[in-house]
């Protein structure tokens, strides 16, 4: 399909100054003509525009399906479209999850070009999250959609364990930012577990990890989204503050708890008495303690990660090369790695490299302290949040966690009765089996 557009190599061109030209250009006497070789051009802007249009359109559809129709079928079909188009057809690049890195790199370095559509791919899901919650995660993100389609059953982890595990995406996000800001590598792209499946090939280790995650998601709702995805962590901040809040039904909760059992990501909070068997004074003291500890955690995280900046900087190609060169100099008997060999062959200058490496290292020490502080702050904040008591009367959706998969709609008996009044008799049977 991309073949549609091709470029032609011109016939009359002068020699490149660099060409080695050991042998003179042949003088053909038989009237031989140089062949015209045509190379296929890369795909055009068209696909990028289509990506963005589809992104917006699908998110809009999901909003409509979730807030108006309360239909899981539409969301599931969106998931299928997403997996087929964004996943298999567009082979997963560039995705919103990965665009974090482009944005961070562009934000810190002046010479990095951020294409407009990458910026949109990054911003649009955030805008939607601010309005309607994690619409993007629902049926638009191919990674989430793939897990959603595969999921058949939910065996949930203990709430305490999953609350602890939700720290992993933040740590992942912090390191992603560190590596992107220092222009070392795109961690998310390297460790994307499902890209290998979409491309039908890739790094074997990462692919096996993806398969393991998929097998897990047969029985656990969206393990990647819940416990790994750094973009999900980012979105959860915005969706927690979302303008609209999703409700299972218009008709009011009857506290049947069916929705809570159905939720694959444990986002539906049961009614809770704000009183507990703990003394109020003790609770208040704890809150004050954690509030005071927040800066301590931030500082500790900053110092701990910052102290490792030299070790972390090895992830940068040039720093690694420099270290290899030093090692080679210290132990010349070792076999030369290809990088070292090439460095020498190209007449690389050690002093120049050292200056470069020093620059990278100072970048690293700055950003390592920064992301360390981020990790510390998130942990401290989470602890603070966990010590807050909050009462509610009915089952409520926690917008920070909810991925709008729509499972709960079908479970809510209130919705069933709505359908009963409107449409066919089939649902009556369903309702009977429930009750």
């Amino acid at each position, binding site marked *: 399909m991309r073949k549609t557009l091709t470029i032609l190599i011109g016939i009359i061109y002068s020699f*490149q100054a660099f060409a080695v030209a050991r042998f003179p250009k042949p003088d053909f006497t038989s009237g031989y003509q140089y062949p015209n070789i045509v190379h296929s*051009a890369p795909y055009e802007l068209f696909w990028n525009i289509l990506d963005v249009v589809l992104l917006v359109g699908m998110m809009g559809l999901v909003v409509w399906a979730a807030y108006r129709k309360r239909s899981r079928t539409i969301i599931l079909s969106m998931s299928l479209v997403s997996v087929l188009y964004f996943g298999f057809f567009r082979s997963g690049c560039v995705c919103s999850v990965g665009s974090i890195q482009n944005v961070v790199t562009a934000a810190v370095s002046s010479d990095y070009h951020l294409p407009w559509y990458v910026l949109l791919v990054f911003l649009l899901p955030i805008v939607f999250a601010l309005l309607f919650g994690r619409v993007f995660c629902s049926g638009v993100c191919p990674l989430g959609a793939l897990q959603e389609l595969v999921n058949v059953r939910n065996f949930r982890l203990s709430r305490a364990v999953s609350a602890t595990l939700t720290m992993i995406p933040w740590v992942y996000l912090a390191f992603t930012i560190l590596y992107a800001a220092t222009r070392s590598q795109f961690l998310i792209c390297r460790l994307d577990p499902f890209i290998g499946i979409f491309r039908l090939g890739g790094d074997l280790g990462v692919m096996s990890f993806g398969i393991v995650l998929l097998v897990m998601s047969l029985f656990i709702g969206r393990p990647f989204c819940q416990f790994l995805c750094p973009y999900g962590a980012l979105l959860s901040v915005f969706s927690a503050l979302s303008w609209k809040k999703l409700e299972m039904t218009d008709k009011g909760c009857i506290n049947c708890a069916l929705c809570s059992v159905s939720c694959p990501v444990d986002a539906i909070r049961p009614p809770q008495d704000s009183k507990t068997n703990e003394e109020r004074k003790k609770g208040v003291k704890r809150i004050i303690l954690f509030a005071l500890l927040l800066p301590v955690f931030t500082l500790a995280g900053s110092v701990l990660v910052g102290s490792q900046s030299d070790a972390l900087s090895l992830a940068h190609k040039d720093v690694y090369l420099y270290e290899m060169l030093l090692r080679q100099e210290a132990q010349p008997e070792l076999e030369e790695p290809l990088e070292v060999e090439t460095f020498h062959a190209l007449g690389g200058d050690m002093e120049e490299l050292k200056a470069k490496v020093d620059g990278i290292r100072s970048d690293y020490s700055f950003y390592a302290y920064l992301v360390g502080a981020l990790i510390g702050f998130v942990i401290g904040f989470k602890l603070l949040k966990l010590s807050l008591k909050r009462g509610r009367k009915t089952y409520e959706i926690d917008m920070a966690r909810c991925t709008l998969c729509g499972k709960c709609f079908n479970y809510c008996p209130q919705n069933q009765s709505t359908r009963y009044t409107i449409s066919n008799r089939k649902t009556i049977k369903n309702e009977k089996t429930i009750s």
Partner: protein
Amino acid sequence: MEKKDKDQLKSPMDRRDFLRTCSAFVAGGVAVASGGLLAAKASAKEGEVFWQIDPYKCTQCGRCETDCVLTVSAVKCFHANKVCGYCDLCGGYYRPNVKELNTAAENMMCPTGAITREFVEEPYFEYTIDEDLCTGCGKCVKGCTSFGNGSLFLQIDQEKCQQCNECAIARVCPSDAIQRVSNAHAYKLKDHA
């Protein structure tokens, strides 16, 4: 009295809502502001979004063959006919120290037989690359650049390239030969001016 009671009842909800609305506005503001700033950056330059190899930096280390995310690398050997010397004893076609100039297996450089040649006239041969067979190992390129005019060179076939956000080969390229290029310069050809 009644009013006060009502206020007291309502007040905790109000406080929470107030906080939430404030944070929402802050978050929205941050998103919009950073988006605006980055958008200014995004429009500043011509889009360099495709990956391509600079053949003058390439050292033919062989990693293009092994490190592409595709099973058969998107990197292919290209041939600049206008640079080629059309030699019989071609450093890219024959193995070094070749004894006889024929197509026997022990004489051929290309592991997949992707280079074919056709007799043009005494003493010239035209060389052609079959891109479907080429694995991008760069053996012929190395042979041609060290012993010939350097008319064979490695390029990323833009049709096969998956346009990864971060090119897996670029990450391991020892000479930093793979960079992003704009659509207008999607190929860095050797017979181009």
